[in-house]
């Protein structure tokens, strides 16, 4: 890349490059790499990335951030709706709010442009690699960028986010993933709390019926509602699918999922109608309404035993428990403006003989066993806290990248500046 750098003092020089090495025949690999290493390609990839980021930003006016990220940045191709640009025009150029355009056009997604940039960068260094002071800065910058792009890849593929909602005085030993649902069947006579059999809702949706040796009965999905109203009293006119449990009295009605633009960041609350059949003979025991609205599981008796069944967010059990001692929500005097949120928690980990009190507050997370616990939200009425729990094997990569690239830029631009100032000093003298 350095070969093409236009010396800052005299741009005209660049037009006639001075051949430094005698001509030699290119190998086949070089023939392949050279076009891939083109700076022209770099610039065009920048143009495309620039547009993708812009469109991905506008998309957030229509979709949730998560949807926008998945569709635009963590994908190979994306269909961009024309309406986004109409919306842009409505905000900034006074387009009438009634305007609406259907249709969309295909575009490159983030994975594709990111890999293309990576290939372009690596090819450039392979074809033009030369170690010198002049180039050391560029080398550092680009290796830092590679680290950063890989970091985003690792995050996209491996990072796991979950939440722990804890009331004051309670302690829990699991992390919930709100975007994944499961049906939990608990045998209350079991020894530990983890004596649970769970069926992911995704699996049930795909197969319709689930049979498993660990399950005391078979499950058949009748209806699944990703978002539902709080169950209301069923009336005679209702077609109530449920024949047993709470659902006999109450009925849940499906409502549209909330988009990310929901100002209160409320979440979907799912419900499902599930038919339970006796194992082996397929005798129908009844159809139950399971819902996240219900805070307690429902008892279902099968073969002389009673099980607790509930629809809930996916739980991952941990070898430690976190108890909430106190949650504080401070505001500035005379205002509603939050000053700080903090949770005083007790971390108990018998396997490592840990028992300590920790304070987690905004900008001050707890890192423990490869996971990081952040103060994310709180339960209504300040009765409890919500901690964000993140495991991201790539979390350190941006830190490294930032340091390397910044140092590289200071080195590169600093060397240029010094040379430039020296030149000016000599010409002035």
């Amino acid at each position, binding site marked *: 890349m350095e070969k093409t750098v236009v010396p800052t003092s005299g741009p005209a020089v*660049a037009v006639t*490059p001075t051949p430094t090495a005698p001509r030699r025949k290119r190998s086949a690999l070089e023939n392949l790499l050279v076009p891939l290493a083109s700076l022209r390609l770099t610039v065009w990839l920048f143009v495309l990335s620039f547009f993708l980021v812009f469109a991905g*930003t506008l998309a957030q006016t229509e979709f949730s951030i998560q949807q926008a990220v998945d569709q635009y940045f963590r994908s190979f191709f994306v269909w961009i709706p024309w309406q986004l640009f109409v919306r842009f025009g409505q*905000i900034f150029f006074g387009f009438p709010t009634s305007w609406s355009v259907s249709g969309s056009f295909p575009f490159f997604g983030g994975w594709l442009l990111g890999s293309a940039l990576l290939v372009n960068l690596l090819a450039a260094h392979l074809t033009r690699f030369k170690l010198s002071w002049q180039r050391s800065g560029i080398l550092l910058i680009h290796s830092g960028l590679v680290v950063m792009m890989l970091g985003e890849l690792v*995050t996209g593929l491996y990072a796991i986010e979950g939440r722990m909602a804890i009331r004051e005085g309670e302690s829990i030993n699991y992390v919930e993933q709100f975007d994944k649902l499961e049906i939990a069947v608990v045998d209350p006579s079991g020894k530990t709390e983890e004596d649970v059999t769970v069926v992911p809702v995704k699996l049930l949706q795909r197969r319709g019926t689930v049979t498993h040796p660990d399950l005391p009965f078979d499950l058949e999905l009748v209806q699944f509602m990703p978002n539902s109203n709080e169950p209301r009293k069923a009336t005679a006119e209702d077609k109530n699918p449920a024949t047993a449990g709470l659902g006999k009295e109450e009925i849940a009605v499906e409502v549209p999922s909330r988009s990310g633009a929901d100002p209160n960041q409320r979440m979907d609350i799912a419900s499902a109608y599930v038919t339970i059949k006796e194992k082996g003979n397929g005798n129908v025991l009844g159809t139950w309404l399971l819902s996240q609205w219900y805070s307690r599981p429902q008892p279902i008796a099968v073969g002389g035993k009673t099980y607790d069944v509930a629809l809930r967010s996916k739980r991952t059990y941990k070898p430690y428990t976190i108890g909430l001692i106190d949650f504080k929500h401070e505001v500035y*005097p005379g*205002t509603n403006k939050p*000053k700080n949120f903090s949770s005083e928690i007790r971390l108990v980990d018998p396997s490592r003989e840990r028992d300590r009190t920790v304070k987690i507050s905004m900008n001050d997370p707890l890192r423990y066993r490869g996971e990081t616990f*952040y103060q994310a939200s709180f339960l209504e009425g300040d009765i409890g806290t919500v901690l964000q729990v993140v495991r991201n094997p790539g979390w350190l990569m941006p830190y490294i990248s930032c340091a390397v690239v910044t140092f590289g830029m*200071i080195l590169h631009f600093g060397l240029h500046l010094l040379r430039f100032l020296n030149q000016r000093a000599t010409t002035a003298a």
Partner: protein
Amino acid sequence: MKGFARFLPWCVVGLCALHLVQAMLPERTASDKFNYDAAGRLPVVDGGRVKPLDTFARTNLMLVSSRQTYAQNMDAPKQPAIKWVLEAMTSGNNEESAVAKAEVFRIENDQILSLLELKPRPQWWRYSLAEIGDKIPVLVNEAKRVDRTDPKQRDQFDVRLLDLTQHLQLYVNIAQYRDPMLIAASDGDVNHWMALGQAIEAAQNGQSNPNTRAVAEILLAYKQGKPEEFNRKVADYRDSLEKVYGADLKKTDFEVFFNHFEPFYQCAVLYGLVLVLACLSWIGFSEPLNKAAFWLAGLTVIVHTWALIARMYIQGRPPVTNLYSSAVFIGWGCVLLCLVLERIYRNGLGNAVAGVTGLATLIIAHHLAASGDTLEMMQAVLDTNFWLATHVTIITLGYTATFVAGFLGVAYILMGVANALTRDRIKTLSQMIYGVVCFAMLLSFTGTVLGGIWADQSWGRFWGWDPKENGALMIVIWNALILHARWGGMIKQRGLANLAIAGNMVTGWSYFGTNQLGVGLHAYGFNNTLATGLTIFWGLMGACILIGLLPLGCWRTPDAPAKMPVLTGRKKEVLTTPS
């Protein structure tokens, strides 16, 4: 003539320094007049911090009236904001009082004016409470309707109507002693301050606080028109606070001085003068005028620096904490960077761009200040001096450098069509732009990544693809694009200038545009003036680029064509492959 040339810069700088000193001097009040200055120094708690009553008065008047002073009507003399608050507190409920007849509520929307059956007052647009008075029920009804509608569906009329009702409410709160928290807690705890109304209630319930009585007596003396007694009571009350609130009083006194001096206003005026001098230097007297512009910009930037430090002292925070402070900080950075360029190149361009950017950013800041106290307290997540000092400061400097490069690009294009580009200037200007873009690249990249690290620290994710983050990323990509296009020979001097101007548009988007989408963690709320301002800015920059794209024949610069290849760089592809 020679002597004149030599002394001109010093005369200009000296006169301006004198003007500044004069602006700093406090006004003297005769002992038989109300001492508004002393009353303004009394501490109150408002918006979560201890501040002088003067600041409270100015920011509220600014909200209501878009000015820090008021007048009975268009032709009447200006009066200090603190007087407005004192009058509101003592006779605000009386429709016949002077303060109720003072034209302070700014209403420009013609639909609201017709709703209130008021006549438009061009160039003044301000109306008194007495004039609005009997239409308040109509207003409240409309406001209730607007309140029920989805904020996204509200039109200009709805938004302005809500503003007006809020402004009236704000006045009523002052008149009915609900705002500010005027009564100092005797235990020194900021959380225990009370509004006067609250304190009177508390006193009736047996919780007496000597400060309640003191403040009530001050207001009574004011109401009865007894200046000497008023002045004495104010002084006594202040002395009584000295013991518990000594440190706060030092700060509030300083803040009053800061308010009175209005350093950013002074700077705006002086930057305007710098611009005038720089422009005049192109007509004649080049050397002395340029010198004058340079040293005057130097003097102004000292005041500007002082003002930034003063804000940091009052707030106890790094310089950039909200949109307003980012604007004054960007202005400061632009001017400083331009002065460095001027020092290196000595061609007067640095001065001109310093004047333009300094003046423009301070005017923008003035408009941003209309939304309330600019030294507001920080939301919980922003409550960290470390990240405010690193990420926010660096990213703002990145915006700064991108803007400077962009305005140098504008200078290049305008000089190009105005026949003022010599070979020498083409060379130096493109060097300047190139250097500044490099600097912008460094700062915007580092600032953006530091922001990611902050997010990792507080939310557990390095990069969330939030609109503001994406905006910052777009600046980084754009700067990288400019540099690579130039290294690859795809653009030359003129292309560089054009792309740098487009960089201005990108930065404008990131700085103001992303907030207007109304989504994401950094959304500070929709602001119509900002959206319109941004559209105009984009229009101007777009026009510059169009001019820049005109065929060279239209450029009248005599020796330019030979020096300036067209934008397409097809033949230069050779460069990227080893021959």
